[in-house]
């Protein structure tokens, strides 16, 4: 590994204070907060589509937090005399076959979908990063064993494995979170493992080792921070995937069931009417999924070109 590549790996972190180690290894350091804000500002200006992505995500986060305030009705309130009513000034997105307000349900569903995606990605991130660091740095039989295990897990189409696990566990939302985390762990682990392989051969890690730093310190202070950029990018992609798979599982009818406001299960309920032209209970929750997932994908793309210019 040449010296220039070391710099290339280090430079994006220098720009983003939230990622860089704050141990003072750079001679002149601005306060972390200001550096972070400046980096975010620079990022937002660098890429129009990235900005759009951030706006979409922020909008949905806002909706999730404020849903009880801005939704005109309760998500489970039944209007028995207004079943399958087309969009109107009272029910903006119409009502579904149970006589529930599609608009209120769509807004409320943002809470559940974001919570599931966020929790699951966080869990898989932590476990995956630890696994990746250990296998990548230690190598040997631990590495072999973990890799073969990950191979087996990744051998199945994710949706099928997810369906089977969620249905078997029968724990509703909890098992959906578990399954997404479970399926994402191999992805983070492989990513960090590959980065660790690269970083452990760099001069600064060698120097740290020569100075007698213990392994945990090298991993935590040198390897981890420098392997973060692809993890940050991947996290946006994983969030997008998590939202989609949550909706897919609920659409099939496992995990989250009907009265709970969730986009996929709303589409499942709505899909019965699509052949007879009742489009609103299907179209609106779907649009919600698309806009949120698109926002996350746009963000991932922009982060990709910002954090790893030139890289794939």
């Amino acid at each position, binding site marked *: 590994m040449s010296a220039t590549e070391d710099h290339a790996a280090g430079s994006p972190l220098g720009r983003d204070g939230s990622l860089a180690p704050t141990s003072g290894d750079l001679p002149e350091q601005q306060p972390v907060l200001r550096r972070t804000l400046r980096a975010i500002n620079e990022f937002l200006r660098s890429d129009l589509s990235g900005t759009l992505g951030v706006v979409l995500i922020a909008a949905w986060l806002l909706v999730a937090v404020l849903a009880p305030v801005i939704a005109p009705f309760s998500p489970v309130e039944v209007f028995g005399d207004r079943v399958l009513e087309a969009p109107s000034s009272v029910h903006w997105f119409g009502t579904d076959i149970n006589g529930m307000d599609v608009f209120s349900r769509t807004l409320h569903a943002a809470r559940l979908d974001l919570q599931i995606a966020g929790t699951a990605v966080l869990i898989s991130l932590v476990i995956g990063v630890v696994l990746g660091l250990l296998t990548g740095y230690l190598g040997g039989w631990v590495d072999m064993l973990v890799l073969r295990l990950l191979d*087996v897990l990744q051998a199945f189409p*994710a*949706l*099928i494995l997810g369906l089977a696990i969620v249905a078997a566990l029968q724990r509703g939302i909890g098992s959906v979170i578990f399954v997404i985390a479970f399926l994402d762990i191999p992805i983070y682990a492989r990513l960090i493992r590959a980065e660790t392989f690269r970083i452990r051969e760099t001069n600064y890690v060698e120097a740290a080792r020569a100075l007698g730093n213990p392994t945990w310190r090298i991993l935590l202070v040198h390897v981890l921070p420098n392997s973060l950029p692809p993890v940050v990018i991947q996290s946006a992609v994983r969030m997008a995937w998590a939202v989609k798979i949550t909706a897919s599982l609920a659409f099939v009818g496992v995990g989250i069931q009907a009265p709970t406001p969730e986009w996929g299960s709303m589409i499942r309920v709505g*899909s019965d009417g699509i052949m007879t032209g009742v489009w609103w209970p299907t179209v609106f929750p*779907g649009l919600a*999924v698309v806009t949120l997932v698109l926002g996350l*994908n746009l963000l991932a793309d922009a982060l990709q070109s910002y954090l790893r210019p030139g890289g794939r």
Partner: protein
Amino acid sequence: MNFIRNFGWYAVKRTLMVVPLLFGVSLVAFFIIRLGDVNPAVLIAGPTASAAEIEQVAAELGLERPLFEQYRTYLASALSGDLGESWITGRTVSTELRNRLPVTLELITIGTVASVIVGLLLGFVAGMRERSLVDHFLRVSTLGGISMPIFWLGLLLIYVVFFLTDLAPPPLGRQSLMLATPEFRTGLPLMDALLDGRLDVFWSMVRHLMLPVITMALVIGATIAKQTRASVIEVRNTSMVRYARAIGMPQWRIWWLVLHNSLPSVITFIAIAYSLQLGGSVLIELIFSWGGIGQLGVNAIQRADYAVVQAYVFAMGILAAAIYLVADLIIASIDPRVTFK
């Protein structure tokens, strides 16, 4: 000669790697449905059954024996071709697989071919015209396609193409309900219709395939397009291509050079797309009532039909492993760097 020897070694090694993988896949397929505390005996005996009746059912199914012993029995009989019976339909699982797997395979193979055509075309054009107006347009629309839940797009198409414009037949199966299904020969519906000489059935099937295939082509095609674009750009930026341009190679030869060199990664994407369709077919089959293995699997999963779920998950694992194996071998045969050690 050297290449052939290298390739032979690689092929043998790569194929042998599948064996432990399949063992792991069988383990997962067996234990996954037993993770929870669902008792299939309760489901089979029915809600009014007494405790003694439930116990009797459980004993008949061998559910009381230790898990590992159950697994051993299962593996042994599976290896001899006996996959057990469905507890719901009473049919043997191998019959179900034989009837339904070809149906799904036909669907996802056609879907993958369509996705690959769409994806390669769009990705290649976008990559060769990086940062042009066309590229920006394609980049945004591929991201849109990737962001769409495949089942939602399918439903949307049903609404527009079936309900509003009536261009597509109703999403109620593989062919018109007015026509008799062709005799079971190969199991592949289109093939069987042709073998029966029933062109009307064949045509009806083609029309019914239209919407599911378009749905897959748009969503999976978008994924392939995005990755193709990235690898085309990567290849275009190599010194090899820059040199070709500098010495004034004609444009079509540069295009060929780029295409040829991005082929290995493109084949990987195709393999990924194909295995993605294995999972995605579940959703497609549900909304179009396709009656393939995906629908069988989902029904079995929801009703804890152990024998079917096991076989289904196992079959999907095997298929995915086979797809990746074939892809790796193709890549190794066109890219000597893979086998060169």
